[in-house]
């Protein structure tokens, strides 16, 4: 996947959802979004922003405050966050920026925007317990090396839990992400 193109930045400012910030601030992790006064500590400390031309945590927070719901949720840039939590630890307003971004990602998923990598990881977890499917060769190698067998996953019980929270439904992408 590529970074968002310049067209996104040139898009007309269209406030689609003025109450977005109130909705967001009710979700655990994003309670303090209104406290952001746009100082830019998050962006200046962000390791990804150093190399990305488009990923700017401050901008994501501002767009959310403004109510640019579609632009925020559709944007691929949201997914560039490495969850290193530097922004969260350094925010002078204690906004917990990385958690707000996680809340936005979760909402984006609900709207049908799921980067393919997460479907692969989720299917591994639900089928085997492990996010990466451990190759047979590795399991044999463990034996040869005298390592204990890997603990088994419990797909039946994970399936029950997943069903209770409608997890599988989340992974069916419904919409195209913006470039």
């Amino acid at each position: 996947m590529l970074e968002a193109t310049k067209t996104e930045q040139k898009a007309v400012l269209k406030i689609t959802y003025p109450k977005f910030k109130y909705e967001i601030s009710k979700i655990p992790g994003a309670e303090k979004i209104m406290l952001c006064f746009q100082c830019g500590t998050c962006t200046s400390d962000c390791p990804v922003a150093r190399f990305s031309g488009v990923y700017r945590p401050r901008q994501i927070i501002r767009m959310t405050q403004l109510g640019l719901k579609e632009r925020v949720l559709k944007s691929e840039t949201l997914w560039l966050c490495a969850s290193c939590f530097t922004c969260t630890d350094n925010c002078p307003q204690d906004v917990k920026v990385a958690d707000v971004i996680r809340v936005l990602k979760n909402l984006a998923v609900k709207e049908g925007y799921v980067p393919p990598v997460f479907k692969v990881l989720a299917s591994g977890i639900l089928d085997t317990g492990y996010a990466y499917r451990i190759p047979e060769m590795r399991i044999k190698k463990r034996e040869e090396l005298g390592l204990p067998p890997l603990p088994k996953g419990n797909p039946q019980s994970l399936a029950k839990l997943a069903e209770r929270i409608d997890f599988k439904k989340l992974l069916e992408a419904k919409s195209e992400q913006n470039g």
Partner: protein
Amino acid sequence: MAEGELKYFIFLGCAIPYRVSAYEISTRKVMEKLGVKLEEMPEFNCCGLPMDPVSHEMMVLLAARNLCIAEEKNMSIIALCPGCAGTLNKVNIMLKNDKKLREEINEYLKLDDLEFKGTIEVKHLIQVLNDDVGLEKIRGAVKKSLKGLKVAEHNGCHVLRPKEYMGFDDPEDPKVLKALIEVTGAECLDYVDEAQCCGAPTAGINDKIPLQLSREKLTNIRDVGAQALITICPFCHMMFETNQMRIERMFNEKFGIPTIHYPQLLGLALGLSPEELALDELRVKPTEQLKQIGM
């Protein structure tokens, strides 16, 4: 548990059995030497971290399941991967402190006859070494000083951040891993942006930024003259070690910095052989470094 006996469930996570077994092998060897007992989890699922961007609720449930399974045997968890340590520790604290969340999660876990009670702890390998085993005991177990060897460290984000949950070290200026390195006799050098992310978490989304981040760190490490980089995270290790030649090709420059799992370094100091510590699994071979310390 007998007085003074240290015993944990070892939580391997997904990346270590998938690609980074040298970290597991060396950890088991070192812990045996230090008298720490490691037992296998009776059942396992991913800590939940990779699902947090998709569904926070799923992440909490996945973590909580592991915590409950360990609680049933009254065993605390030692995690080798900072992602697992950070996630399990965070959810453990969240569920211990937030009654409403605990009740909600327990309602789901009932399906499995599981219940979160909040009776165990989760620690990363370096927390166990620093807090439970202790630097003095480790120093006393060193058989072969690695004096003369100059290395640099990279912690990995989730062992340090968010500070609210991990909190055992300073995320801006981490000292625990440095102290653990210096116990071996090796010198741990300071360098620019020591605590900066390796980039691994964005690898599934973008193919350039993670390599740019790792390259910058390797450059900073090379600039201070470190002979090796010491890691405590399977993902950071994959970025700096497995991907090092790819980074060299991409940016047309040479690093040749062996990237060693901390328990491999400690193991050498405890008198274990390079073979026992699976040092041969490294792509960037620490041949010169081993020669220097007489191996």
